[in-house]
């Protein structure tokens, strides 16, 4: 059975997903790619906006989520930490 993801791993997965789509995605993409329920996704997106990792924009009547510089920085830092965690086996 797959291990349960921690809160920070979920945040990283969402941000990484947005980054892999060019830094701008529709909420449905995050819903499917993030493997989360609608309610949990809403909660996480609010948290990410409050933390300044993503921005909510309206483009031609569509709702999009855009990754901010702070979000990109978080991804880089998190990858470094993952690498360290893996290297030290902690």
């Amino acid at each position: 059975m797959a291990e349960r993801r921690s809160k920070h791993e979920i945040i990283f997965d969402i941000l990484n997903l947005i980054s892999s789509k060019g830094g701008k995605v529709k909420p449905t993409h995050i819903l499917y790619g993030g493997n989360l329920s609608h309610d949990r996704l809403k909660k996480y997106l609010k948290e990410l906006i409050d933390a300044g990792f993503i921005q909510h924009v309206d483009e031609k009547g569509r709702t999009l989520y855009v990754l901010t510089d702070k979000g990109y920085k978080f991804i880089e830092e998190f990858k470094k930490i993952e690498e360290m965690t893996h290297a030290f086996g902690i």
Partner: protein
Amino acid sequence: MEINLAVLLSNQFRPWIYWAVAGIQFLGVIISFMISYLGIKAYKLTNDKKYKYFFYGFFFLALSFLANVTLNVLIRSGYAKYFVEKKYELFVAPLFMAYYFCLIAVMLAYVSLAILYTDIKNFRKLWLFYFWTFVVGVYTFRDKFMFNMFSALLLSFVVIHSYDRYLEEKSKNRLLTCFAFLCLFLFHLFVLLEAVIPVFFIVRNLILLVGLVLLLLTLTKIYGRKKK
């Protein structure tokens, strides 16, 4: 006050060897601080306690290396001997303090790493572990062998667990860190041989250097990771 400072003051080998050892210890300061910085950053980002112990481990190790370098430089540059001979208590006391601090910091570093790798989560057991390590650290300052054996004992947990983690997922980085901890373990263990064959003082420090270089290699892999 008679402690092992007398050993530190001895000149069994040529002076450049002691300066080289101080250099190795200085490398230890830099590497340990860099790793502890990663640890505290990880803790701030994730709030996961395992990173806190990881930070403590390398931070205390860095402080102990720093105290060791300071002592080594003071002793080898002749200042310490001058103060001891002239009985300038005011200057000698900080030397002893640095020496005790170094011993206790090493113990706290290894116990933090042992807690991290053995995955102790019970609060009482955890503090019991710290308490007894502190007590042993305080009472072994007169006995170089006891101190090094206790350090080796704590590190043996770290080595075994890091080897188990390597077996779980065979990666080059995990092997590097496992060997680095093994080198630290041997560095303390070989103090037994140093008593019989003095040249093991050099061998031990060379092993420490190898361990530090392995940690540095791991660090360069972490910091040198290319941005995608």
